[in-house]
């Protein structure tokens, strides 16, 4: 079934980062860019999963959405979150960008092992954050994002992430 462009639904951003100031920086940048997409934040993997699955009484985050994921977080870090998401039959198609300060090769490899959409390194110049967010915004506008699978389908589409 083709999705017509006119039934455009707003893309939500889910930002997963334990650094409060970092989240503030992202929000400010988005505001400066006049990006009005709804933004949700989580301070670690556990909270992010709650948002995505709708635990604790709220409804799960409606697709389409893009996740901006940090790596180094307490409780459940970026890799563990990715592991969980790719295993989840409903969530495994999610488009996730890693946005982190770590440039370590293991982090990069590990992320791409779990099919992240892209790995972006936040380095010092403030401008790089802005460009990263511009990229994500463009993706949200141009790319057709996947739906969350409504039922747990164990069909040929189901991806088993090892």
């Amino acid at each position, binding site marked *: 079934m083709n999705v017509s462009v006119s039934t455009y639904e707003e893309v939500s951003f889910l930002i997963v980062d334990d*650094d*409060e*100031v*970092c989240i*503030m*920086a992202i929000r*400010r940048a988005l505001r400066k860019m006049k990006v009005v997409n709804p933004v949700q934040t989580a301070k670690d993997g556990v909270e992010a999963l709650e948002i995505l699955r709708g635990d604790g009484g709220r409804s799960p985050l409606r697709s389409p959405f893009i996740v901006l994921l940090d790596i180094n977080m307490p409780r459940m870090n970026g890799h563990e979150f990715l592991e969980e998401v790719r295993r989840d039959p409903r969530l495994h198609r999610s488009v996730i960008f890693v946005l982190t*300060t*770590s440039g370590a090769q293991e982090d990069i490899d590990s992320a791409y092992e779990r099919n992240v959409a892209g790995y972006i390194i936040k380095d*010092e110049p*403030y401008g790089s954050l802005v460009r990263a967010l511009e990229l994500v915004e463009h993706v949200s506008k141009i790319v057709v994002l996947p739906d969350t699978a409504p039922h747990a389908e164990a069909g040929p589409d189901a991806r088993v992430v090892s």
Partner: protein
Amino acid sequence: MRLAMAAMALLVMGLSFIGWRGLDRIQVAQLSLTEEAVPTLFRAQAFEQSLLKLEQSVGDLVAAATWEQREAAVGRYDRLMRETSAAGGGGGNYARLFRDLRGLHADAAALSEDIIRDQARFAEAVDHALRKADAVRAGVDAVSFEASARIETLLLEGDAPDARRQMAAVLAMLTELSSMSGLAERVGDAIAAAESAGERLRVEELEGRLAFYLRSLVRHLAQLPAITQKGAFAQDIADLRQAVLAEGGVIRLRLRLIDQTARLRSAAAAHNEAALEVSGMLGADLERTRARLLKTSDNITLTSESAVVAMQAAGALSLLLLAATAYFVVERQIIRRLARLSLAVRAIAGGANKAVVEVSGDDELGDMARALEIFRSNALELERSNRELARFAYAASHDLRSPLRAIRDLAQWTIEDGGDDLPADCRANLDLLMQRADRLSQLLDGLLDYSRVGRERSSIARVDITEIVGEACALLGKCNDFAVDYSGDAYMVTTYEAPLRQIMLNLVANAIKHHDRDAGVLQITCAVQQNRLYVSLTDDGPGIDPRYHDRIFGLFETLRSRDDVEGSGMGLAIIRKLVEHYGGEISVRSDPAIGRGATFSFDWPLKTLANDNRMAA
């Protein structure tokens, strides 16, 4: 094992000694051969020849008919005898025998002398006898002639009765005379026959005949009438008889000659028999000598064979010894262990600090192995501590950055959000806050750089120094204001590329940053000496007080307040750490009291590509 080798060495020496002794004995035997046996052989041969010659000379003596011939034969014999005796004595036996030979020869020589003398006498006697016989015949013939003449006369007288009686008497006398002539002739013949008669029997027969002839002559003479010659005839016949039959006469002399000749011949035979005896003795000697020769040569062969065997055994054993030494000592003890040590050294140099050193022992190799073990554990420790440091530096720079950034951002946002509502001193405070945050960030960067110095192995490449210098200036963006004056050849050198770039960059940046004017000149000189690169950079800035020449290389050191010149203060510290890590030294020359400018000099290793890339990889 050393004991076993010592024993083997002794064995080799023993065998060699046996072999040497054998060869020595062979030499002695050979000497005995050449000095005894061989001369004996030669002597024997010479003797044999001499004997032959002696026999020949005796034969000559026997055959000698004249004094000269006899002299010659005797002389030759004497000479030969002298030569033989002189040639070699031959020992007591031979001397005696040769003396005997000489004796026998002397006998023969004496006999020969007699014979020749007798032969002369015989010839005279024959001559005499023949003359006598001739005389008789001649006398008889003369009377016959007269008688014949008488007959003729008588014939002419005719038939006178006396004449017939006289003629009968004369005829009767003629008959007697004719018989006598015939007999005389026969005597002559018999004498001639006796002259050449060689056997005693024949001579005796001739003697008989001659006696008969002579008796007949006398008989016939008796029958003769009384003529005047009758007396003369009787005398002549008596003389003839004397000349022929008497002692000293032809017959007697001839018989004596025959006897003597026979005696001479037997003397010669005795001599030659004796010579044969000598020859026999010689033969026996030769046989003995030959037997000794054979025995000696057998000895030689045996000894030489056993010597050869001994030498061969010694040789084989030596080789075995050598092989055993080579194998045990060299191979096992040294080469293998050396190979293992070398392998371990290379592994550890290549970075495999976990490689086990499988060499042990009490000797130098063992010591090396133990030292290597210590190096290895040191290297392991160093690696571990380096890793620790890296982790620490990374963690520090990483984890400290976030709050630092947060501080800076929050200050920034406060300024942005406050806008014009923000009081001026608040704003100034926030500015300072941001500056300090930036500085802290720079210091962190510098610290991270400093910690990273030398941890990464840099690759070796061929680099152009002028290009590095140019790049350093370009990176700092001040090429227009600061001129670079490069002297030294345009060196293409082979060395660690990245750290050299970093050093040049830092030095140029330092010079520019600390210059008190907006424009200046940087002089860079490079020289290559003994596989090291010597670089110096001179600026025309304010210079550095000699008091601070040491301090400027310290961590976080700056000479002007950080408010004037922003800098981490790490630049020179990093440069020094880099230079020293690669085995060089950096120094500064400057004295503002004397003049402007400062010169930084350092040296840097140059490499060849092949080996060191292997080691560094």
